[in-house]
């Protein structure tokens, strides 16, 4: 049975690492639903959050293959743990129904980043469900453009992604 998995990966912060990870997914035919990557507090490390889907066997292979990459330090399938996911998106909306848009924005707890005679730009954060609901609420007013960061995720409780686990 195919399931969605959120995988966190600590990698060495070097050029080419993203290409190795992306190349692994494309060469083995694995799916990437979203991928986000950025430096951590330790500047020698980057953290990736990869959302993928596949059968248990495929996801097990994905994790093992990621672990084989020399620049990959830790891999964890957060789907197995209690975790929080979050994504940020920017939505540009038409101004024709400005009052309604601003009302909706308040309801959605969106930040208003731009509000002028050309467009309204909203910043919305939340999990996949929250974003979906936001798009549905804004669609009637005319969404001009959407840009999303991709999902990021963190474990609940005291657990943190540390160097060495799973290698």
């Amino acid at each position, binding site marked *: 049975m195919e399931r969605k998995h959120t995988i966190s990966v600590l990698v060495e912060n070097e050029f080419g690492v993203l290409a190795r990870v992306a190349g692994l997914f494309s*060469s083995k035919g694995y799916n990437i639903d979203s991928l986000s990557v950025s430096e951590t507090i330790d500047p020698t490390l980057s953290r990736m959050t990869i959302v993928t889907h596949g059968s248990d066997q495929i996801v097990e*292979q994905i994790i093992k293959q990621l672990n084989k*990459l020399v*620049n990959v330090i830790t891999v964890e399938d957060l789907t197995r743990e209690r975790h929080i996911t979050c994504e940020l998106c920017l939505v540009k909306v038409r101004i024709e129904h400005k009052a309604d848009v601003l009302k909706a924005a308040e309801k959605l707890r969106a930040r208003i980043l731009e509000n002028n005679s050309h467009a309204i730009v909203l910043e919305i954060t939340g999990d996949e469900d929250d974003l979906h609901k936001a798009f549905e609420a804004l669609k009637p007013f005319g969404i001009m453009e959407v840009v999303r960061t991709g999902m990021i995720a963190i474990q609940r409780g005291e657990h943190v992604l540390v160097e060495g686990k799973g290698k």
Partner: protein
Amino acid sequence: MNQMMLAEAPAKMTGAQIFLRTIHDLGVDTIFGYPGGVLLYVYDEIFKQDKIKHILVRHEQGATHMADGYARVTGRPGVVLATSGPGATNTVTGLATAMMDSVPMVCFTGQVPVQLIGNDAFQEADIVGITRPCTKHNYLVKDANDLERIIHQAFYIASSGRPGPVLVDIPKDVTLATAEYKGIKQVTMRGYKPQVVPAAGPMEEAVELIYQSKRPVLYMGGGIVASNASDLVRQFAEKLRLPVGITLMGLGGFPGAHDLSMGMIGMHGGYWANMAMNNADLLIALGPRFDDRVTGDLKKFAVKAKKIHLDIDASSIGKNVAVDVALVGDAKQVLEKLLKIVDKDPERARAFRESITSWHDQIKRWRDEHPIYYPQDMNGVLRPQYVIQSIYDITGGDCIVTTDVGQHQMWTAQIFPFNKPRRWCTSGGLGTMGYGLPAALGAQVAHPDETVFCISGDGSIQMNIQELATAVQFKLPVKTAILNNFYLGMVRQWQEYFYGHRYSNSDLEAGMPDFVKLAEAYGAVGFLCNKPKDVEPILRESLKVKKPVLIDFQVAKEENVLPMVPAGKALDDMLLA
């Protein structure tokens, strides 16, 4: 002796000097290479020293296969040096070959100066990008200060865990820049720590599964050879009297002439061996990877068997076939511990050996029903199998054998009993035609006093024939036996069986060179042999000649490799002779 090689660390050196000094520190005695514009500082340093031998190849693909042959027979990483652009892209096939067969190799490529990278400079290629999927890891060295550390890391990665090729791309300006040579002794990497020591629990469980089995088969792969665990596998098989089925890559890892050996398994494995695999109630898989050429139709593969799988690469386990017990670790360490568990209770082992007698009887019946068969009565027709048998008989098996890819490769695997590890080089995973001759040269460089045979085909040999020049230049007396049927024999065989005898583009007769003249043109020795009675005298003569020899064995044109499991069929669904 050049000063650079004697200098005590720390010392200021150019990148080119650090390169040579560091590989010398790592025990490298031979480079297989070919010069080019961006490598001239490196070649200038090679010129000035005599510690490291440089074998000048005639094509960079040849260099990679030579390094591969060198690595397979010694267990040490083979070293390649190729220039930027086309020199680098020519290494790709050899890297992919080494990757598929887990062969340790370090390939150094020259690159255009750092400032020119990305500018489509003359002889520029993004070789790090190109080789990412066919290397275990690769590097672009942008600063001479990183060079020494990266070279140490490259060798460590290539030769540890599941071995494989590593590429190091060095821009020209980095070879000229000065940096401090530090005399690094060892390296650690945050993201690379191969698991060699196995967990204890699964090993107890594995031995228990063996004792519960009634029809066990030890399914042995190339991991045993890579881990130098042959002696331990032999002890293990003998103590439990396990019949052993061997993959193409595992040949020699268990003695082929041993009573317990069932020879090769898989698409062209023996009938008895494949029947044993598919009727087993337990497969003890030691270092294979459940390749499709072994399993046939996965849905019908060894369905009655529980499976124990030992591999140092966790991703090999459960990749194609679900297993009951996973043993992740170095084969040598795992087998040492398994043997200890078995030795704790010799009485139980003895009882087990006796309990599987009827299973051995069954395997013997299968073997008697359909042995590997080729007609002995030849009526003057030279059969390819006879040539291979004769090479074994005349050398007493005491030689290193390389092959190319196709029918000759499968016949060699079926007929030649490899009794020792690291005496057999063949491209198993990638199936690279043109591998055999350069691999034989690499093996001969590593073992100058051994007899090295390259068993090839008329198609394959023409793919890297230019390396005869390397053989002659470096006085490498490799014996190449071409089993010449004037066809791409394996392609023709498939076309005969599965494509209505339509021999589309598999006939090589038009344009077939005169191999004797070709050998002579290079300064090697050529023989033509087309009669069974001439095989032995010609082979004996070729062994006396201290030069490279090319023998054109013109054999029966439409001989087939049997048994054969057609692609996608179940392992016990074989075409038989």
